């Protein structure tokens, strides 16, 4: 049975595993499992050679979490806490612009949502604690953000805009995890459809003029709530002209 082919943007990062310490193309398995659990087939796309031809082979694409985006993309000075990866920025912004142009189903996760906003002409807040005076979006109370694991994620609610795709998909209000110190400031030509009720930080953006373009500021792949991935897979299956994919997990 044919499954929609879902690309995931991956890191090229210095990584340690076993006795190895080397540069590797890599992505946490949580993303891969989220795609496979919702009926897609995952392939990873590393930022090695900026080029968009690979998009022609894909039915959908996930822009994954990671480091900060260079604020030069919206003409701002770099904040001391901003850490960038030039190769990744170049590759992903090119891919995002091309994917939007192709009307490819797109899910942006955390940094991926920020890439979406910047590609659509928007801008970011570079350090939320300066803006809102709180670390609620970054880390659970008492954790060391430099030794992160799943327990280190923050937690807060998100409320969605009635009539939006986010509202239809996720409901009026949900609780999400959180691990980001930056956020969307200006969404460019995209619509803002979800916020943190405590501080109005933008949590969901979408493009109502395209088949499926959704950005979420949290990490759904780290949770049991994979509705965002399921919706991407369904949109990708429709684009590919195949039957609705069977979810392998409820």
């Amino acid at each position: 049975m044919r499954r929609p082919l879902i690309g995931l943007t991956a890191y090229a990062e210095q990584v340690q595993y076993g006795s190895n310490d080397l540069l590797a193309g890599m992505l946490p398995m949580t993303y891969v499992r989220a795609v496979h659990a919702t009926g897609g087939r995952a392939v990873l796309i590393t930022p090695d050679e900026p080029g968009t031809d690979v998009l022609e082979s894909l039915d959908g694409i996930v822009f994954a979490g990671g480091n900060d985006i260079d604020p030069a993309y919206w003409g701002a000075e770099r904040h001391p806490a901003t850490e960038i990866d030039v190769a990744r920025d170049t590759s992903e912004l090119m891919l995002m612009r091309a994917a939007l142009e192709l009307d490819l189903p797109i899910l942006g996760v955390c940094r991926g949502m920020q890439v979406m906003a910047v590609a659509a002409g928007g801008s970011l807040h570079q350090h939320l604690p300066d803006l809102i005076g709180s670390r609620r979006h970054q880390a659970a109370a008492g954790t060391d953000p430099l030794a992160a694991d799943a327990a280190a994620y923050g937690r807060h609610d998100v409320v969605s805009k009635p009539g939006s795709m986010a509202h239809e998909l996720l409901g009026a209000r949900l609780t999400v995890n959180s691990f980001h110190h930056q956020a969307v400031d200006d969404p460019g030509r995209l619509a803002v459809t979800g916020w943190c009720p405590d501080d109005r930080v933008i949590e969901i953006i979408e493009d109502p003029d395209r088949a499926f373009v959704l950005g979420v500021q949290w990490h759904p792949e780290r949770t049991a709530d994979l509705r965002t991935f399921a919706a991407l897979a369904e949109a990708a299956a429709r684009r590919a002209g195949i039957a609705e994919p069977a979810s392998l997990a409820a």
Partner: protein
Amino acid sequence: MRPIIGITTYVESASWLVWRDLPTALIPQAYVQAVTLAGGRAVLLPPDDLDADVLRTLDALVLSGGADLGPDLYGAQREPLTDSRPQRDAGEMLLARAALAADLPILGVCRGMQLLAVAAGGRLYQHLPDVVGHEKHRPAPGVYGEHQPSFVPGSRIAALMGDDLGVHCYHHQGVADAGTLAVTGRTADGVIEAVEDPARKFVLGVQWHPEVVTDQRLFGALVRAAG
């Protein structure tokens, strides 16, 4: 559009930046660089044992190195030093068999060559030092063994390697029986270092690690076959 070259990924508990010991799909970037330099577009294939459907979108396949194959793949009892990753095995065997059946160009590297041999009905030695009496194929953690295999005249690998026979080995297992594949390279101790299927468009397995020297002879040939 460049040929799309799929590369199977490892699955390992990995640490990077602020993250510690997370299950990760990864591939040494050297593989990606080798494919890109040769003019291909690399996509990484994390393990998936549902089907081999992804091959439809690929022009060639690299079966990468990494952990040992589970001996259940060739019907053997596990020996003490075999260190496998069950998450990889079923999905990669599916891909290898389907790629052979589809006559897709395939390059098998280290574990990948062993996978080809097993897919072709062969089997492995689970610890070469027990067989050959030395550790020169994996001298020390992180240290490659440098060898100069002999290649069968007229074989694909002989033509590709030319006069520069130096290779970098890092393996403690080896092919005992290559099944229906032809053995086209060995080191002086008899260890199989290259296998081919001359009946197919491009099927080549090498026991060493060509990606550590970004070997354009091998990756270039794969990408040309894919184009």
